[in-house]
Every structure is written in C-alpha cells, then in structure tokens.
C-alpha cells in the first residue's frame, strides 16, 4: 500500500482573546526574538486547548504533535468532541491555514469540501455558478464541461439552471452546490459535515454518492462528522482527536466504541432526594443477577435495570417506557409497562427489568426512560442515561471484532430440510 498523506509532528497554535493595541507591541517583540534567532516568546506559554478550564497564556495549541499516515484508498472518519481540533486539522490539511510547526506530505491531488457552495455568486445563473464553484474547488474547465450534464442531472434543478441562484429556494441552492462538489475528481477528498443538507430524499442520495466515492473509486477520503452512524457507514478507519491530540487511530467500529465510552457526559446512576414533586424516578441503575451495580456486562450475562418510582399523582393509566439506544442513538427496542401492574408501598413502587443473556450484541448503548400517561402527559423523561457496555467474552462473533454486526443476537435456529 502506498501512503497518501503523512503527517509529522503537526501542531497549530492559536492566539485567543482580543487583538488590540497589544498586538503591535507583541508583533515587534516576536520579530525581535526571531531576528536574534530565538524562539517565539509567546508560543512558550502554550498549553493544551481545554475549553472549559481557565488558562494562563493567551496562546492555545489547537493541535499538538500529531503523527499519522493514511494509505491510498483509506476512508477515515475523524471524530472528537467540539473543540477537539477536527476542523483545525481539516483546515491545515486543505491549506486554508498553515501549520505552526511540523509537516504534512501529500501524494496526489487534494480537494476539500469544508462547505458546499463556496463562492456561489447570487447574480450568476446556476450554470455559471457550476463553473465558478468547480474552479474554486480546483477543477479545470474541461473537467467541469465533461461532467456538466451529470452535475445538472444529479442536482435535480435542471429547469432553473439558467436562472440566477439568488432566486433559488435554499434547498435547490444546496442541491446544486452539493452536486458540483460530488463530482470533484481528486485522489484525496476532505469532507466536513456537508451531508446534512437538503431534504431527506436528497440526504439519502448524498450519502449514497459519498458511499460510492468512498468504496468504489479507490480514493482516499477524510470525513468529519458528529453523525456516528454516517461515519460507521462510510469509513473503514477512525481517528479520535482529544484536546488536539490523537487519542486513537484504527478500525472504525473500535474507534466509535472508544469514543462513546470515553464521553463521560452519560449518567450511570439516577438518585434523587424527596424534594421532587409529581411522579418521578427516584432511583435507577443497572445491576447483575446478584444485585451489584455495574455498567459493563459480558454478552452471556443477564442485565437488570433497577427502578424505583415515586407516584404522588397516581392514576391507573400511567406507563413506564424504556428504550435502548445504540451508540448512534438509533433505537434498538422499546418496552412499555403499565404501572398499575405493580404493587405500591406508600406511593412508591420498585422493580427490576431483566434483559436476557445472549441478547444484546457487544457494543455501547444507553437508555431513555420515561413515566407517562399515554397521549396525555409526560411526567418524567430522562434521555441518554445509564451508559451500558456489552463486552464480547467469546461469542461466535468474537473473531469479527470491529465489524458492525448489529445490536442483537437473533434467536434463530437451523433446521434440516
């Protein structure tokens, strides 16, 4: 395999805070240090870019000492929280801004799509804008001409192609813009969250087109998205960025698992005191058959959701709803149980729900729980809680580690015919 992109010790520093009259004196100081062959005095203060913490200097390292290589044909999903450095990395790779230190070596033509419709001029017609936008993205005129019909066809705005784009609906505008971008002919393509455009039908078309580019053309694609499902679908490798550094680079499913598990925003235990009024959850947690609390289960172990509910406004229609979501926040299954079925002690009920062993496939999950009066009122709703990890401890699928084989083990049987 040949290397398409090689990144060596890449760092990027940003100055934060206001630029004011201070900048001119800092510039002079910097220049003076440089002419004496010394290090930039303001970069020394640099620190990790952790948004929520207060820092000393006004320089932050948005990227720090990145080293990695992408092979030709790799489709890499870049994931990370807001401010982890994803966009900065794409900006540096696509030459919009230059690195502070380090090197990037690239083999092949590179095109980046940090946005669709860059440089569209409202007064020009759709056709004129196809040429202008294509040229801005680095296409030659003859390449655009050759693909013109296909672009117009893909965009689905043929009727308006000789109308100035300022008269387009916003949907038509992005369709046309994406159509141009989708027909770029570079060996390396950098894509930043541009799929979230247009209506559902067009999004499907866009993802399909991206999949086609990623899987059938042998091109190297770097893809940034918060949509983990799209990353999973499109990419074969995942690069996790954390505070400007590489947290992990490897198989995309493993990367997504690690990313989901490392986000500690999820609540493992719900415990509330008695001050709350109305029907509500008082205590919710996961445990195993011996009632000990935990969040990691092996695939052949039973899982229990322990729930205590306080019901000051009891009525016989109340229901408990419980939904399991996979790591892409797509629902796996839903449970509805009428609360009237449980025995009340005071205004409190307590029970546990058993999920059988060998049912949930290895992976990361979370739960949404709710007390409601169907079609009438929601009393208490908590989403994305009780982070759950199912670990493969020797299932049939263990050898396919890293592949996405779904979220449940099907209770199938094999019969002779």
């Amino acid at each position, binding site marked *: 395999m*040949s*290397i398409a992109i*090689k990144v060596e010790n890449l760092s990027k520093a*940003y*100055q934060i805070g206001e*630029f004011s009259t201070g*900048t*001119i004196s800092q*510039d002079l100081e910097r220049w003076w240090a440089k002419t004496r062959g010394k290090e930039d005095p303001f970069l020394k203060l640099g620190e990790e870019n952790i948004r929520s913490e207060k820092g000393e200097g006004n320089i932050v390292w948005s990227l720090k000492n990145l080293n990695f*290589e992408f092979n030709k044909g790799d489709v890499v999903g870049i994931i990370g929280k807001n401010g982890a450095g994803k966009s900065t990395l794409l*900006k*540096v*790779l*696509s*030459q*919009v*801004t*230059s*690195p*502070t*230190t*380090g*090197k*990037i*070596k*690239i*083999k*092949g*033509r*590179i095109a*980046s799509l*940090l*946005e669709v419709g*860059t*440089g569209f*001029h409202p*007064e*020009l017609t759709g056709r*004129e804008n196809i*040429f*202008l936008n294509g*040229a*801005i*993205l*680095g296409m*030659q*005129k003859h390449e655009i001409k050759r693909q013109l019909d296909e672009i117009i066809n893909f965009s689905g705005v043929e009727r308006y192609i000789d109308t*100035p784009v300022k008269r387009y609906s916003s949907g038509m505008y992005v369709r046309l813009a994406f159509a141009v971008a989708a027909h770029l002919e570079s060996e390396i393509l950098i894509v930043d969250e541009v799929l979230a455009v247009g209506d559902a039908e067009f999004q499907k078309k866009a993802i399909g087109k991206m999949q086609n580019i990623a899987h059938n053309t042998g091109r190297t694609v770097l893809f940034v998205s918060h949509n983990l499902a799209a990353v999973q679908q499109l990419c074969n490798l995942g690069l996790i960025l954390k505070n400007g550094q590489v947290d992990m680079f490897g198989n995309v499913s493993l990367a997504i698992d690690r990313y989901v598990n490392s986000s500690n925003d999820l609540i493992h235990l719900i415990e509330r005191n008695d001050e709350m009024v109305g029907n509500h959850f008082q205590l919710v947690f996961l445990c195993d058959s011996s009632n000990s609390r935990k969040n990691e289960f092996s695939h052949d172990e039973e899982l229990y959701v322990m729930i205590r509910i306080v019901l000051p406004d009891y009525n016989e229609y109340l229901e408990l709803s419980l939904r399991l979501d996979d790591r892409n926040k797509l629902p796996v299954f839903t449970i509805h149980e009428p609360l009237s079925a449980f025995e009340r002690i005071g205004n409190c009920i307590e029970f546990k729900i058993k999920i059988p062993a060998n049912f949930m496939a290895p992976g990361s999950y979370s739960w949404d729980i709710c007390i409601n009066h169907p079609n009438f009122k929601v009393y208490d709703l908590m989403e994305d809680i009780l982070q759950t990890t199912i670990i493969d401890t020797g299932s049939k699928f263990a050898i396919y580690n890293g592949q996405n084989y779904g979220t449940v083990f099907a209770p199938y049987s094999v019969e002779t015919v």
Partner: protein
Amino acid sequence: MNTDLEEDWDLVLEPKTNLFDLKLKEIWKYRDLLMLLVRRDIVSFYKQTILGPLWFFIQPIFTTIIFVYIFGNLAGISTDGLPSPLFYMVGITAWNYFAECLNKTSTVFRDNAHIFGKVYFPRIVMPISIVISNLMRFGIQVLLVIVVYLYYRLTGVDLSIDFHILLFPLFVILMAMQGLGFGMLVSAMTTKYRDLIFLLTFGIQLLMYATTVIYPLSSLTGKMYFWVSLNPMTYVLEGIRRAVLGSGVFDLYTLSYAAGSSIVILFFGLFVFNKVEKSFVDTI
C-alpha cells in the same frame, strides 16, 4: 517507511515558504478560475441594470464635466495647451484604473474571508483577477477617450501622435503593477490592523491631487515639482499623456523611474501578501 519514496510527494505543507515566490506555475494551474472570476466581476456589475455596460461610460463623462468646470473654468489650471475635456478625460480614465485596482485589492482578504476560510487556491489569483477585470473596464473607457479624441481631431485641433503611442501598453502595465502592489500591501496589513482601511478611502483622494491628474507636471516649479515627481504614479500619468496626447514630461529617466518603482512596489506587496496569506484566516 521507504526513504526512496520520500522524494515522491506532490505537496509538502510546512510553516515556512518562499516569500518572493510568484507561484506562476500554480497560477497557471488555476487559470480557468482566474478567467471565471474576471467574468463574474464584469457580468455581475451590470446584471439587472437597464443601461448595462453603458454605466462604464457615465462615470468618466460626468467627472470630466465637473473637472472642466471647476479646475478648468473656475480655477483656470493649465492643461498644457490641450482641450481641457480631453486632458481631464485621459487623466481620469488612467487614474481611475489605478485607484480601482488599489481600492478593490486592498480589501481582498476582508471581502473574500469567507471563501478563503473554506477553500485553498493561490490567494494571489483574487487580486490578479481584480486587476484584469478592471483592465476590461479600462479598455471600454478607452473607447470613450478615442471618441472624444477623434472629435477634437476632426474639428481641427492639432493633436500629434507619434511612435510614443507604442509605450501606452507599457504604462498601463506599470499602473496595474502599482495598483496591485500597493493594494496587496494594504490588504495584508488590514487583516490585523483595520485602521488602514479608514486611511485608504481618503488617502486615494489625496493621492490624486499629489499626482498629475488635474494639472500637468510642467505647470509646477521648484519644491513642488520635486515632491510631485517623487510620486511613482506621476511619471506614469505623464507618460500616458505623452503617448496619447503628445504632451507630458517623458524621457529615459522618467521611464526607468516609473518602471523601477513599479517593480519594487509590486515585489514588496507580494512579499507582505505571501507572508500574510498562509495564516490570515486565524487573525481576520
């Protein structure tokens, strides 16, 4: 990693680059973009107007009328023995080209920050496209000058054209170089210090009075003559008048002064522009 593969990279991104690099090869690669940008500037200028490209004529005509009245009739400033409308029109047309290049180029980073922040192409393509699209405009306005010229010629005014007319294209190029150079310099500096924008708007106006647009250099004497002739645009305008109207200060010295200063300005502008373009996205 194979060491013999190391030489094979198509592109290496590094913090440092050669600051005097004109990047001609890269500009050639993006020539289609350059031409499309020129087209965009021209077409979008008169779209949805009734008079269309006629607007290119209206501005110089009215300015000339006002100048003839104020500077010619009221102030009685010499026009080197030439019919004053023709004298002013040549000066205004040429000066406008320079001023427009400077004006538009100086805000190139600000006006295009949005595009520059999203896509890479050699940034210099933008200022060059401005200079070329203004050149088209200038060319159209030259037609107007020719019409006025022919009118005076036919009404019997003695206007001698000699081989100097061949220098006209050269002086236009020098004007373009100065407009581009100054513009790039200002644009690069305004990415960090916005103050210059305010300075520029009235600076261009003041500069016009320090250049021989509304008066011939020959009407000046002593200290004034010295200072005005230091202005790099002065000899260019004088040269253009010499080429077109047959009057104006011109010799080998003025030609080399104009050419030399234009080259210095262009490369200085380029140097600062290249320095800023790599990372201006972070400061604008």
